[in-house]
Every structure is written in structure tokens, then in C-alpha cells.
């Protein structure tokens, strides 16, 4: 085996920096101290003195690999699976880096860099991750170029690398569209339970929504077909709670699977939702969904759920009716449940309305809230007493949607009106750049549903009574004036109009990415292929499209490279000489870039002795025209080349 060239210290350092770039997305996803340790190893390598880098003993990387594998096993309790597997890969890459000496090692490192870049999409497929992967790709190609050609300057090699990557795009698009996709991934990606945010379906207790108010991440995006409903009608229905333990609301224990019959009283609204993964099994829909994806079902609480948790971004279309009523009897026992002997003041207040009709009791409750000087605030005093509802209704009188919904539901139950809590999102921010609504975690909301004999379940929003602006204008508009800006997510502060416009545009791009790249799954691929007349991946027609597309792209490049003029000669003499050289291609004679005209002429004479005389004439005329700037020679050259067969 021949020895391959040894790397110079600069080349080793470049490889180190490349690995740092490639490993960055992985390190960001690992346990902090594990990624800190691995990152430190990479930085150390890049910062080592050149002569030390070449003197690292061979055994060191073996030791490094063993230790880091033990460490990964310690952290993840396994060496397989997504997180652990990636950690193993990165650890081994770093160990390999430490023993990289020759060009052959460097080639292995480059292949590893490509692989690690591909693997980075296991962490997520957001646009910024794709951008980072693209950057890593360009850097890898750039280093590969520099290894082969030491003369290249950094600028030229970066430019060339970008060009190479751009040239790969047509092929990548073809394969993206046509390469068969699996309905489900071959390997199942484990759900990361650690990062659970957003609305909780488990319980609702004071303060649980308050944390979301500070959170301006997108919960989902919605796009309406046709006119969008007004802001006050945008109640996005999520988890429903009907068990109260005096402190928190819990979901119903027994779900009878069938929803009560529903009568739509208003026009139908059609829309599509792109839901960010929240690791729970409920979907969001405008109150109240009438048509929804087949994988989901409406349960007895009128909550849209599906069997498996939403671990990947989900796009679905649904239809809702904004005015509705249900038939049949409610499970009144559950909807009237209250913890015994708690909140005596509330109970006695509610019982004072017992004589009224149920609908009238609801109005009395709302009227009472309206007249008792309640105020809406995101920083309410802490409720600490045993009778929390009493404390809220009669003492602190400050709170936000959660407090009002909770207190009002208890008030209604005490007044013998079946009631329950519905959580979800209210409103949303319209993005004119993409014509869709962005609903953020900060838009989380809670409201009450009461059951009235003739009408069935009806939505009542006590927060609307206390703070109508919260609902009418959306969260952002009602609060920016009242709160200090720093208490709100930066995007919601009104004075930052420029930043707001930029963020809106940015989100529109993210939305496009989600709709066109991420959402392109096996189902969409099949739909597209069926439109092209392909029903099966194993058909001749599919093969024809795939191979035809490949050939078309490769052929396009071939034509481009064959007909491309490497550098357009600027002066007349070289243009004429280039024409002469083109004529010589017929005899399989090609001038090398570094070959002088005389050297080329000698070669040509040997190959085509019968043309020697005219070749010598043309060469001499060209030299005189070009290097002695002889204008008469130029004129003769023109004639001689025209004559040349």
C-alpha cells in the first residue's frame, strides 16, 4: 500500500474547525456537560500547537474513544437509540480526528462529516437546521477541495464549494420529489418527553397558563379558506376539564366514546391547521369541529383527540361551525361535582340564584362578576387559603382567564348549572405575508361551558365580561398598553413595529418551509405521482420518470460543460487563435492551458505533418499579432485561419 501524503498542521486545523461546525447541531441537543466535554475536546484540537498536533500518540485516540463510549453509556444508559447513537457517532468522530495524520485519514473524516450532517436532521427539520446543514455541507466540500489543491485561496475554494453544492440542487429536488417515501420511518424515533410545553391535558391549576403568557413560540398556524371569522369568534378548542378538587381541574375520568348529537346553527368555516408537535394526543380545532381528519375522533367532551401523541408537525384540514347546540342530557352528576365543604361563601352566593331559570342563573353570575370590580391582570396575588375560590371572588378579585373560568365554573355548579372548563387558544395574530394566523402559546385561554336544558352545552367566557378587550382585540393589543413591555414577549410589544414586520416575514418563510418541505410525506407524494399517472413505485412509468429526470439533469450539465467557453479571449488575435484551435479539435489536437503556441505547433506538426506548413504560418502570424502587436500580421492571420481546413 502506498503511503498517502501527510497533512500539514494547517490542514489538520481546518479539519478540526470543520468537525466543530459539523458537530455543533448535535452538541446543542446533548446533555449540557456531555456536549461541553466533547466541544472542549474539539476546541482543544483546533487550538493545539501545530507541532503537538502531529505528536499525539496513536493510543490516545483509542483511549479517547473508549472513555467517551463509557461516558455516553453512563449518560444515556445505552449506546443505541437516537440521542445515544448520535453521541456515540460524535465521540468516535472526535477520536478519529485526534489520530488524523494523512490525506487518507482526512478523506475518512470528510465522509464522516457528510454523514454527521445528514444525521443532524434527526434532531429536527426546521429551516435554521437545514441552513446549518447546508453551511456544514459547503464547508466540507471546501475542505475537500483544499486537500486536493493546495494552491486555492480560501475565497476561491469557498466560491467553488458553493458552486458545487448549487449544482447538486436539481438532482436533490428530483430525488426529493420522486424517491419513494415510507409511510412511517423505518426506525421509530423515540418521543422526547423532556421538552413538554404548551397547554397541558393533564390538569389545569392556577399559574399553569401564566407561564405560557411569557412564551411567544408558535403553537399552531391556521389558514382559512375564504373569510376568516372575527377575532372574538376564534376559540380554538383544546383539552376539556370537568373534575374539580378544590385546587386544580382534572380531565373527566370515564370517556364515553360517542359525542352528543350536534346541531349546527351557523355557517361552516373551512380551514387547515399546521400543528407544532406537543407530544399529547389532542388536536386543536375551532369551536366546534364538524369535519376533521379520519385519524382523529370527537369524544363525549367534544374534544378532538387521536390515538397517538403528536410527535411530529401535523397538518390537517377541518371544518367548524361557530354557532351550535347539543342534544341529549349531559352527564350532570359529573358536571355538577364539587369538593364538599369548600368555598362556603361562593356556594351561598350561588344558592341565592336557585329560584331563577338556569339561563338566568348564568346571566346573574356574569352580571355579578361585572359589577364586583374584578380586574384582569397577569400578575395576580398568590391564592393560599384552603377556600381558593372564596379568596379569589371575595378578597383578591384579580386574576386572568384561568381564575375567572375556574371560579365561574364553580359558581355555576354551586348554582346547580352543569359546567366544565375548556382550555385552548383564543384569537391569533394574522400574518399578511402568508395570509394565515399564527397562534402562539401566549394566546392560551380557558373558558367555561354550561349545560342548559333546551340548548345543551353553551360557551360562556367570564373573562370577556371582566376584560372585553382581551377577547376583542386579541391578547397583544389589550395588554401592551397596560403592562410593562419587558413583562411581555418581545414580539408582542407594540412599539417594535420594524422587528414585528421582520418576524412576520420570517414566520411566513418558516410556514412555507413547513408546508412545502416538511409536510411532503408519503401521502402527498402519492397524490402528486397519481396526478402524473403513476400509481405504483414498481411500475415502468415511475422508473421512466425517475431515470428520465436523472438523464435530463445529467445531460443538461453535459451540454453546459461542453459548450461553455472556459474564458472568452478578449483581444482579436487570441479570438482568432481560439477559432484555429477549435478547428484542430477535429484532429484530436487540444492545446493545454499552459502550452505555448510554439510548443503546440510542434506537437501538431508531428501529428498532422501534411498541415505543417499552414500550422507554422498561422502560429508565427499569431505570435507576431499577439506579442509584437503587428497589425498586418493580424490581417494575414484572419485569412490564414479562414483558409485552414
Amino acid at each position, binding site marked *: 500500500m502506498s503511503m498517502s501524503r501527510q497533512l*500539514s498542521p*494547517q490542514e489538520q486545523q481546518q479539519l478540526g474547525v470543520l468537525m466543530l461546525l459539523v458537530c455543533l447541531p448535535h452538541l446543542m441537543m446533548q446533555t449540557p456537560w456531555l456536549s461541553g466535554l466533547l466541544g472542549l475536546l474539539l476546541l482543544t484540537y483546533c487550538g493545539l500547537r501545530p507541532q503537538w498536533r502531529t505528536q499525539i500518540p496513536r493510543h490516545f485516540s483509542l483511549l479517547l474513544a473508549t472513555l467517551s463510549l463509557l461516558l455516553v453509556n453512563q449518560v444515556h444508559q445505552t449506546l443505541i437509540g437516537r440521542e445515544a447513537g448520535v453521541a456515540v457517532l460524535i465521540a468516535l468522530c472526535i477520536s478519529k480526528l485526534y489520530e488524523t495524520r494523512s490525506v487518507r485519514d482526512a478523506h475518512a473524516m470528510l465522509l464522516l462529516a457528510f454523514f454527521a450532517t445528514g444525521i443532524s436532521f434527526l434532531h429536527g427539520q426546521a429551516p435554521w437546521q437545514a441552513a446549518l446543514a447546508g453551511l456544514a455541507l459547503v464547508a466540507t466540500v471546501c475542505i475537500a477541495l483544499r486537500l486536493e489543491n*493546495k*494552491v486555492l*485561496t480560501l475565497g476561491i475554494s469557498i466560491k467553488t464549494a458553493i458552486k458545487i453544492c448549487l449544482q447538486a440542487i436539481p438532482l436533490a429536488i428530483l430525488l426529493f420529489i420522486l424517491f419513494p417515501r415510507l409511510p412511517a420511518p423505518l426506525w421509530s424515533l423515540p418521543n422526547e418527553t423532556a421538552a413538554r410545553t404548551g397547554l397541558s391535558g393533564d390538569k389545569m391549576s392556577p399559574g399553569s397558563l401564566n407561564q405560557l403568557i411569557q412564551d411567544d413560540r408558535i403553537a399552531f398556524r391556521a389558514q382559512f379558506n375564504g373569510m376568516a371569522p372575527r377575532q372574538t369568534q376564534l376559540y380554538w378548542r383544546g383539552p376539556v376539564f370537568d373534575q374539580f378538587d378544590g385546587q386544580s381541574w382534572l380531565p373527566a375520568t370515564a370517556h364515553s366514546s360517542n359525542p352528543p348529537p350536534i346541531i349546527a346553527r351557523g355557517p361552516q368555516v373551512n380551514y387547515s391547521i399546521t400543528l407544532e408537535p406537543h407530544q399529547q394526543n389532542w388536536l386543536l380545532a375551532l369551536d366546534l369541529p364538524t369535519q376533521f381528519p379520519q385519524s382523529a375522533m370527537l369524544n363525549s367532551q367534544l374534544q378532538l383527540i387521536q390515538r397517538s401523541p403528536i410527535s411530529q408537525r401535523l397538518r390537517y384540514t377541518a371544518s367548524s361551525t361557530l354557532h351550535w347546540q347539543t342534544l341529549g342530557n349531559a352527564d350532570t352528576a359529573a358536571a355538577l361535582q364539587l369538593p364538599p365543604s369548600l368555598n362556603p361563601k361562593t356556594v351561598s352566593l350561588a344558592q341565592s340564584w336557585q329560584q331563577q331559570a338556569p339561563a338566568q342563573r348564568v346571566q346573574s353570575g356574569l352580571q355579578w362578576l361585572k359589577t364586583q370590580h374584578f380586574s384582569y391582570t397577569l400578575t395576580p396575588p398568590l391564592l393560599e387559603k384552603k377556600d381558593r375560590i372564596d379568596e379569589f371572588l371575595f378578597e383578591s378579585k384579580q386574576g386572568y382567564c384561568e381564575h375567572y373560568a375556574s371560579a365561574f365554573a364553580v359558581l355555576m355548579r354551586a348554582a346547580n348549572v352543569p359546567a366544565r372548563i375548556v382550555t385552548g387558544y383564543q384569537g391569533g395574530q394574522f400574518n399578511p405575508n402568508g395570509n394565515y394566523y399564527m397562534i402562539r402559546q401566549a394566546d392560551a385561554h380557558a373558558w367555561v361551558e354550561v349545560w342548559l336544558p333546551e340548548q345543551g352545552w353553551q360557551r360562556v367566557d367570564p373573562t370577556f365580561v371582566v376584560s372585553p378587550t382581551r377577547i376583542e382585540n386579541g391578547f397583544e393589543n389589550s395588554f401592551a398598553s397596560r403592562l410593562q413591555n419587558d413583562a411581555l414577549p418581545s414580539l408582542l410589544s407594540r412599539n417594535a413595529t420594524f422587528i414585528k414586520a421582520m418576524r412576520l416575514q420570517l414566520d411566513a418563510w418558516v410556514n412555507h418551509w413547513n408546508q412545502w418541505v416538511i409536510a411532503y410525506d408519503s401521502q402527498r407524494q402519492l397524490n402528486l405521482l397519481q396526478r402524473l399517472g403513476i400509481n405504483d413505485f414498481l411500475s415502468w412509468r415511475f422508473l421512466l420518470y425517475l431515470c428520465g429526470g436523472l438523464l435530463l439533469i445529467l445531460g443538461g450539465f453535459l451540454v453546459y460543460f461542453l459548450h461553455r467557453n472556459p474564458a472568452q479571449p478578449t*483581444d482579436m488575435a*487570441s479570438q482568432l487563435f481560439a477559432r484555429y484551435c477549435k478547428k484542430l479539435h477535429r484532429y484530436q489536437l487540444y492545446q493545454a*492551458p*499552459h*502550452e*505555448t*503556441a*510554439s*510548443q503546440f505547433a510542434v506537437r501538431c506538426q508531428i501529428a498532422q505533418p501534411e498541415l505543417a506548413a499552414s500550422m507554422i504560418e498561422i502560429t508565427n502570424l499569431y*505570435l*507576431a499579432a*499577439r*506579442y*509584437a*502587436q503587428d497589425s498586418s500580421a493580424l490581417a494575414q492571420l484572419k485569412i490564414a485561419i479562414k483558409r485552414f481546413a
Partner: protein
Amino acid sequence: MSPPTPHSLLQQLHAAEQQLNQIIVGKPQAIRLALACVLAQGHLLIEDIPGVGKTTLAHALAQVLGLAFARIQFTSDLLPADLLGVSVYERNEARFHFHPGPIFTQVLLADEINRATAKTQSALLEAMAERQVTLDGQTHSLPAPFFVIATQNPQQQIGTFPLPESQLDRFLLRIELGYPSPAAERALLEGTDRQVLLQQTSPLLDTQHLIAAQTAIQQLTLSPALLDYVQALIAHTRRDTQFVYGLSPRAALGLVHASKAWAWLNGRNMVLPDDVQHVFVAVAGHRLISKHSHRNDFAAAQQILTQVAIP
């Protein structure tokens, strides 16, 4: 004497070249480079092992061109005064009188230049650059033309003071002679003794003609296309990461001068990329230092010619 025509000058030089080829057998390329170096008014460095004819070449060159010749063997105890001369107090005239050293000649052979100390070397190199000697505040011009041929033994580096890059840069061309081919060696063995040949050699040129030839060469004009090529070559050496430094502007000028001389010697008034390619290694080789070996890399210099496209 009437001014010589360019054509007769060229003929004289070709005759001189022919004469040189009879003395140094089988090295026409090296001889033409040496002649081009004289004509471009540069100094020549010959780097080779002993006994391949370095001294003979220098001597023959002086003889054929009709120039005064002096030779100094450089040793570690050679002092600048041994080279430049001394001022001696003359009792009769009651003043100092300058006794010029061997450097006051037209062709100076500095044999094994790297054996002398840096002090002596720099005295020589200063004289080469300025073409004058300054001693005791008095400036003495050197004869014109003044031309130094230095030799260097590349292999025995023990006890030598290698010339630093800045001083190597002062030599326009650097050539190697190398072993003669078997046929040339046979001719050498069969022929007359070189010393006898040298003594028989008569000058074919005089100083005036040589200066006329030098002037004619200086006046050659270069086409923009050729200058583009020279600049591309120079730029390439500066970009190429395998060399410590790229070529200096002085080297670029040297390349232009040597190419002109080469073109003129080949009987042309236009300078072609071919001329540049012929002299490039001799001009650039000793100025480029490899990053890996920290020595001159002539193979790499040769390779540059295949890496740079002719514009």
C-alpha cells in the same frame, strides 16, 4: 569604430556561444542562460558539485567576451579588505593611497561563495547591487560591465555560511551544470586540455559591443499579453501555499529582463511565453523556499509552469 548593427551583434554573440560550447561540451542550455544573464546585466549563481566545469565556464565567458577576469577563492578567513582593496599610507606622498582589490575587474568569479563569513559575503553583494565600492568614505566605481559569477557547492554544507534569501535574490539567474552526457564526456576526454583551449581562445567581442547588445535588449518592448503571463506566474507563487514567500517584484523584473535577453539571443525582437518558460526556473528556483523542506524546490518551480495557464 562605427556602431554595430543589431544583426552583427547577434552574430558575434552566436559565435561566442559556439566557442563556449566547444570548451564546455554538451551544456548548450546552461551556456545560453549564462550568456543571457550577462546580456541582462545580472549576476550568475552556479550551484553544482566540484569538477563539472564551473570555473572553466566563468573563465571562458570572460575570455570570449573580451572582459577582464579575476577569481577569488572564498574561505572562512577571507576579509572584506581582501576583496575590495585597502588604503595604504604612502610615506613619500604623505597620504593614503587606495590599492584596489580583486573586485575591480569585469568578470569576478567568486568561488564557493558560501565558505566566506557573512561579513565578506555582504561586502561582495553590496558591490554587486551598487556596482561601486565605498571605502574610508571614498566611493570607487567598479568597471563596466561588472559581472559576478558565484559558485556554490550544494552538498558539503559543513563549515559554510549559506546565503540568506535576501542575498540570493541579488543573483539574476541560478544554473546547474550537472554531469556531461557520455558522448560529451568522451569528447572531453579525447580532446585538448581545457586550460590550453582557454589560452587559445581569442575574444570575439569587445566591451563596447557587449554594452551595445545590453542596451538593445533593454530597449525591447513587451506586449500586454506577455506581461499578463508574467504577472500570472508571479501571482501564482504568492498564492501557492507550499512556498514560504512568493516572488518579489525584483524577481518579477529579473524574469522580464532574462526573458528579453533570451528572446534576443534567439534572434527575436518580440518576447514570447516560451522565453519566459525557458528562464523561469533559473530565475525563480533559488528564490522560492519550500515550506516543507525549508530548502529551494526546483521541481516545484518547474511545476508552476504547468499550473499557470497562458493568458
